[in-house]
C-alpha cells in the first residue's frame, strides 16, 4: 500500500515542521523587534512560510525518485513547474 512508506513520510513531515517552526520563530522575533528594526524579520518569516510548500513538493519528488516511482516523480515535477510559473508571474514581474 502506497501510504505506508515510513521513511519518506518522516522526511516530508520533518520538512513541514522545519518550515513551520522557522517561519514562526522569525515572525515572532520580527514582532518583538518591530519597533527597533522595522519589519525585516517578519518579512523573512513570511518568505519562509511561502517557500515551505514549494520545498515540500521538491522533497516529495526526490523521495519518489529514490523509490524508483518515476510516474509520481513526474507528477511532482509538474506541480513544481506550475508553482514556479506562479512565482515568476507574481513576484518577479
Amino acid at each position, binding site marked *: *500500500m*502506497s*501510504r*505506508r512508506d*515510513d521513511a*519518506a*513520510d*518522516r522526511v*516530508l*513531515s*520533518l520538512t*513541514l*515542521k522545519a*518550515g*513551520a517552526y522557522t*517561519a*514562526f520563530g522569525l*515572525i*515572532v522575533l*520580527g*514582532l518583538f523587534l518591530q519597533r527597533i528594526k522595522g*519589519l525585516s524579520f*517578519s*518579512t523573512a*518569516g*513570511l518568505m519562509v*512560510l*511561502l517557500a*515551505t*510548500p*514549494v520545498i*515540500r*513538493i521538491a522533497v*516529495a519528488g526526490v523521495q519518489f525518485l529514490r523509490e524508483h516511482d518515476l510516474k*509520481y516523480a513526474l*507528477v*511532482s515535477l*509538474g*506541480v513544481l513547474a*506550475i*508553482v514556479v*510559473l*506562479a*512565482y515568476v*508571474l*507574481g*513576484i*518577479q*514581474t
Partner: protein
Amino acid sequence: MTLVALVILVLIGICAGLFGALAGVGGGIIVTPLLAIYFGLPMHQAIGVTLLCVIATSTATSSQYVEHHVTDVRLGMTLELATTTGALLAALVASRIDRRTLAILFACFLLYSSGSMVRKAWTSRHEEREEVIPDYTPQKYPLGLLASFVAGGFSGLLGIGGGPIKVPVMYLFMKVPLRVAAATSNFMIGVTAATSAYIYWGRGDVRVNIAAPLVAGVFAGSLAGTRIAPKVRTFYILMLLVGVTGWLSVQMIYKLLTGGFR
C-alpha cells in the same frame, strides 16, 4: 499600528488556527471577513493576507497527519496538478474583479460553508474514531481532478482552502476514507494557497504588518489545536464555527446592502 490592533490580530490568528486544526475548516474563512468588515481592508488585501494564514494552518497541521500516514501523498500530489492550475488562473483573474463583486461571492461562499458545516456537525454527533484506515484505491480521477481545479479556483479568487469542495468529492466519488480525504485536502491547501499567494504578493496585496501578527497567531493556534484535538468533540467546535460564520455572513450582507466594500 497600535499595540491593541497588534494583539487583536494575534488573537484572531489564534482562533483561526484553532478552528483550522480542530474542525479542519475555517482557518481562512473567518479571517477575510473580519479584516474586510472591522479593519476596513480592501477585499483583495484581506484575501492576500488570508492566503498566508491558510498556508500556515496547512503547514503546521499536515506534518502531524503525514507522520501518522493518514495523508495520501500520491493522491494529494496528483490532485495538486489541478488545484495549482485553478489557483494560478483565478489569482490572475481576481485583480480584474471589483471589490464589491468579490465581497458578494465571498458572502455566498460563507453561507454555503455554514450550511455544509451544519451537515458535517450533524453527522459527527456520535462520531466514533475509525482507528484503522481501511484499504482503498482512489476511483474516478477525472472527476477528482475537475473538483480540485474548481476548488483551486475558489482558493485563488477568495483566499479560502477549498476543503468543503474537495473533501466530499474524494469521500463520496473517489471512495477515499473520510479521514484520509480530510488530511489529504489539508496537505494540498498549502501548495494551492502558496501558488495564488505569489500573485497577490507580487501585486502588493499582502501587507506584512497585518500578515505577520496574524500568521504568528495562526501557528500558535494550529500547533496547540493539533495537541488538544483528541480531547475535543468536533460537534461543539463546528457549532461554534457555524455561529461565527453565520454572524460574519450577516455582517457582510448588511455592509453590502448599505453600500460598503467600494
